[in-house]
């Protein structure tokens, strides 16, 4: 059992938790993830490690309440426990190679929680980092101060223009490139559709692009292939070969399709869970 030492609501549906997991904290590096199970009946879900404190043995996760499991997780309070928490899994992101280089790090929504530690690591390794953070609307903006402290320049975007500049992250990236910025690499982390369109854009300008893939996972240790995706025509397992891949080689359409595999069952579980919570709130 893994104790929740701190929880903080970053926006209406995004929660941060500091979890006591010394073994994970001791070894983890930016880009790696954990798999957790909320309770005995729970499913295993992957979440990226947003932050860690080796001395205190603490791992920080940030998640969005998108379905039954994340809703259950969000109900846990400080001092309560997560049943299972295993990691670090996956390969760490490359950061050293960006020393002395100029990199655009792009985060979309919750993806900012994963893009931020990577930006920080590259910045600390001696790279110049421009960060573009995109949100649907003002209410869900998060981690602005953390991101600002971890890069050379931060561009905040909202789809509806309620905060920062109006537009998508791709609009900003294109205008920066067109304005003469020369990026050695682009790192994109966020919804699959966002990453796909970032890659379409950077392909045009021939800028190497790394994406962090988030397919369906079960074990997270390479034993089932549930997370497989096609990269450069070859099948890869995101949990052991990734999660970072060359974005220009990823078959995004296939991955998007595979991510919808259980959408009906997920919707039913979400519904059931929401009803149960409502019943409890009504004192039933």
């Amino acid at each position: 059992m893994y104790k929740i030492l701190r929880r903080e609501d970053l926006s209406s549906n995004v929660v941060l938790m500091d979890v006591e997991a010394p073994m994970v904290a001791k070894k983890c590096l930016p880009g790696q993830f954990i798999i957790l199970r909320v309770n005995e009946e729970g499913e295993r879900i992957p979440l990226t490690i947003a932050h860690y404190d080796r001395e205190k043995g603490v791992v920080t996760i940030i998640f969005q309440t998108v379905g039954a499991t994340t809703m259950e997780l969000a109900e846990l309070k400080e001092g309560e426990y997560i049943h299972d928490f295993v990691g670090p899994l996956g390969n760490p992101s490359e950061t050293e190679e960006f020393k002395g280089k100029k990199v655009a790090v792009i985060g979309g929504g919750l993806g900012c929680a994963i893009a931020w530690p990577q930006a920080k690591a590259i910045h600390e390794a001696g790279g110049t980092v421009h960060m573009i953070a995109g949100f649907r609307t003002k209410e869900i903006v998060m981690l602005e101060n953390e991101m600002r402290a971890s890069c050379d320049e931060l561009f905040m975007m909202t789809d509806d223009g309620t905060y920062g500049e109006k537009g998508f992250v791709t609009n900003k990236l294109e205008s920066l490139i067109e304005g003469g910025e020369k990026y050695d690499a682009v790192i994109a982390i966020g919804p699959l559709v966002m990453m796909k369109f970032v890659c379409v854009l950077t392909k045009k300008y021939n800028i190497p692009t790394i994406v962090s893939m988030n397919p369906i996972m079960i074990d997270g240790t390479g034993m089932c292939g549930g997370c497989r995706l096609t990269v450069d025509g070859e099948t890869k397992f995101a949990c052991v070969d990734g999660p970072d891949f060359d974005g220009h080689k990823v078959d995004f359409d296939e991955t998007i399709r595979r991510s919808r595999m259980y959408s009906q069952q997920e919707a039913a579980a979400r519904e059931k869970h929401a009803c149960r919570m409502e019943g409890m709130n009504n004192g039933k």
Partner: protein
Amino acid sequence: MPEQAPDVRNKNFEEVALGYTAEMAVEEANRCLGCKNMPCVSGCPVNVQIPQFIALVAEGKFEEGYQKIAETSTLPAICGRVCPQENQCEGKCIRSIKGESVAIGRLERFCADWHMEHSTEKPKKVPSNGHKVAVLGAGPASLTCASDLVQMGYDVTMLEAFHAAGGVLIYGIPEFRLPKAIVAKEVENLEAMGVNIQTNVVVGKSVSIEELKEEGYEAIFIGTGAGLPSFMGIEGENLNGVFSANEYLTRINLMKAYDGKHDTPIFHAKKVAVVGGGNVAMDAARCAKRMGADVSIVYRRGLEELPARKEEVHHAMEEGIDFKVLNNPVKILGNEEGWVTGMEVVKMELGEPDASGRRRPIPVEGSNYVLDVDCVIMALGTSPNPILKKSTNGLETNKKGCISADENGKTSLEGVYAGGDAVTGAATVILAMGAGKTAAKSIDEYIKSKN
């Protein structure tokens, strides 16, 4: 042995074989001739003293029979159920020359079940000898190795990547062949004997072998199995509705996706093709059948060549699973949304025997046709997971990624031993247990020689 009726059991996940009654066990035990040279014992990788325990059963001394088995075997309730006895102890039974061998496996299972039901005695803790050993993985090889070591007095810590111990016994073999409560009970016994089991630890990621040595573990046993699934590399394999048997079985068995009370979803297919002919293929097919699908096994050789146990094939056929033998997948077809709509297969014929001694399947030109399925489960075998190899300097492996170990389980690294599927590639529970036992003995000798 009494069994659930095929048409009843193919709709539930309860155990198929119901086990002997006391009368049946005594009657069967009386068939044993008590041979002096005991060929059956030589067929058992963990050397259960078979005629001796059977003689006790014949006298109605069931608990004593169990104790006799327990002298050499760690997991009799499991072995009695899942060992391929026809190739092991029962294959060597004198009675099998003329007629049917003594049902050693069923008697073993009977004793173990009797013990679980009637005995209140707690397993004994052996005083510690002060030496620490780490056992990696919690499958049959590791459970056996840990059990033997803890009984010799070692402080044993078992590290498991999943959230529960048991390995293939809990994620692979379905409930209807091996109830998970039995595995849990055996694991509890091991803990009561003093084995410290830590789940959620991925050796190679959470901690390295080198770090374990630094932490004072004098020897390490690697029993991490062969969990990496193979795919065919044909078109359409990444369509929605195509699974590795490992994924399908893990969702069903470990995550209990079948019972509707657990959160892990499972794809509810109508028509399933399971590709492969081993025990894993039979397990996947029988699970899919219980989930309400029409199921076909697609296998490139003939019925005679099916590598699965005869008993499993027989059970699968009884349960209404269709066998499309001498058929090989060519590609998987999908619709515009990317869901499986069918599988194109080609008919095969058998040619000359190949290097493995089995007749080589050859495609029959122009015989392609499409099977109407919405789900394909690939049960083509597995190989060892590369995580450990990648993170451990100097750990030698062969071309297939299997850890190189000698007949005593010794690897290329001092103090590091290995056994089970991690060394042999996918094999059987009982062979893994035998390897765990051998390695425990080697580890004991190694630590004694050092001190």
